[in-house]
């Protein structure tokens, strides 16, 4: 491979499009799955309900299934001719071959990582703090918002960052579910893949690779700093 030199850091319009699209998809996927992730993590960590083991299994499924399989399942469920697709289309919600579909695929793939980190931090909360809250007159819902949620903030941040990083790198499920359409569903990963398939695309692939390394590094450092601040505030000495 010939190392590019001169125009290394001049990103082309197509490359910018892929970067912007990746960031948008990853951000939307993370924010949209955040409430579900928090509720699922809390329920798995603290509450007893029938089918808990099944829910736990379903949440973790995308972690162990080949991404292509997850993408195909999404296609069968939410695709234009899928189980729910036509009904959603009547409501004006279409996922197939749209960036929103890519966000769904990324959210599903990042969900197990998100829930895992959050669940650990809910489990780490001293149960006696919850008991104290209840003896002071707060029911479990108030206790959740006033005690569990604020104390789990470091884990929630870590979970969100992990899901964001996963969404940035997601490839298999996305390309299976919504294909690889420049400007609509072509994320950085998909673009790098495309560039490596055409002659003379190595330079573009290299530039996008460097960009994705920086984004990932920046996200990890930001999470580290935010988490350390949160822990300091909570005075995790006990």
């Amino acid at each position: 491979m010939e190392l590019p030199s001169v125009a290394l850091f001049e990103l082309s319009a197509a490359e910018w499009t892929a970067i912007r699209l990746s960031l948008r998809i990853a951000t939307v996927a993370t924010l949209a799955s955040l409430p579900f992730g928090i509720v699922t993590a809390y329920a798995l960590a603290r509450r007893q309900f029938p089918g808990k083991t099944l829910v736990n299994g379903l949440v973790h499924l995308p972690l162990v299934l080949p991404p292509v399989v997850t993408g195909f399942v999404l296609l069968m469920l939410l695709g234009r001719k899928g189980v729910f697709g036509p009904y959603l289309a009547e409501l004006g919600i279409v996922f197939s071959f749209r960036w929103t579909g890519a966000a769904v695929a990324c959210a599903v793939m990042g969900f197990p990582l998100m829930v895992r980190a959050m669940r650990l931090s809910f489990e780490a909360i001293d149960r006696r703090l919850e008991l104290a809250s209840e003896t002071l007159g707060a029911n479990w819902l108030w206790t959740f918002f006033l005690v569990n949620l604020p104390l789990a903030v470091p884990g929630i941040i870590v979970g969100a960052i992990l899901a964001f990083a996963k969404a940035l790198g997601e490839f298999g499920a996305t390309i299976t579910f919504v294909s690889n359409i420049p400007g609509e569903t072509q994320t950085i990963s998909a673009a790098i893949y495309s560039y490596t398939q055409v002659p003379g695309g190595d330079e573009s692939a290299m530039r996008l690779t460097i960009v994705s390394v920086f984004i990932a590094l920046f996200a990890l450092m930001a999470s580290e700093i935010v988490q350390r601040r949160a822990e300091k505030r909570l005075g995790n000495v006990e």
Partner: protein
Amino acid sequence: MIEVDVRLNVGSFSLDVAFANGTGVTALFGQSGSGKSLTLSIIAGLTRPDAGYVRLDGESLVDVEARVFVPVSRRRIGLVFQDSNLFPHMSVRQNLLYGRWFAPRGERRINFDAIVETLGITNLVSRSPTRLSGGERQRVAIGRALLSCPRLLLLDEPLAALDMERKLEILPLIERVRDEFDVPIIYVTHAVEEVVRLASRVVILDAGRVKSVGAPTEAFNRLDYAPAANRFDRSSVLSATVDESCLAHGLTKLKHSAGTIWIAGSAGPCGSVVRVVVKATDVILSLAPPHEISARSILWGRVANIQFEGPIATIAIELRDDGQLLAAITRGALEDLALKVGSEIYALFKTAALDERSIGMASSQVIR
């Protein structure tokens, strides 16, 4: 008024406890494993009993037969744990006001400033609980429970995790809380001294059963009661009256029908009743009236019971008219003195051996 009558089996342990209390402090006393914390947890609603009921001011909080169970958050019972469990993400002020916010508006009778002032935490309110000492944390925890304006306050060994100095700092605060705020208290402890100092009634638990109920002096002094696992925990509770000739050299002379007890410091006006805890290991026995000896407190009585435990004999001495005193001596000493049930004996103990916790004013209700 709280009425408890509950049964619960946990593994091989069976709890079967019934008692009631009115105002003031009721102590739940027992060694670890006697079921006192479990009883407290049933009252608070953290544990469900197999059978029986808990009623507070006539309202059933749990009644297994009638299928009543009021959830913890709606019982309005304050609970202070051994380790204070303050919310680390809130300031001391937010911790203190947490329960108040959930109390019904009309029931918020306990004033924030009064609590903060009584507990001496005025200058802590803006701090983070993670930067408080153990004693400070526990004071905030007591304040937090009180400010939720509870109908009953449960204290679960609140001093157990603290060193002696902190204990002596917080005990008088609990006394002030008892006297200033009209909240009945159930106080779980395994320290006789704390019972004597704070409680007007004590429920003695042993292996999940109520052994004895009553005023501390009566409940502890039943002759058949062998309370502690080892001799170092064995103590007796005496009640005595502050004598006319109070305060010489900073000492107070107490009159007991069986003799004289000297304590360090003052113990209220002449004529008031004081309870004193004497450890069995601090007592010396003498056949003749002792002379030229430094021990100041001398009581006369008869040997009522002798129990052996290896080389140590625990002797219960029945004091004239009032109570009994336990003394732990060696078998050798027992033989030399030829003690047997019925022997007359002088019991001596050192004033310096009685720490501040050992001397309790009976709570205000009892003095009157």
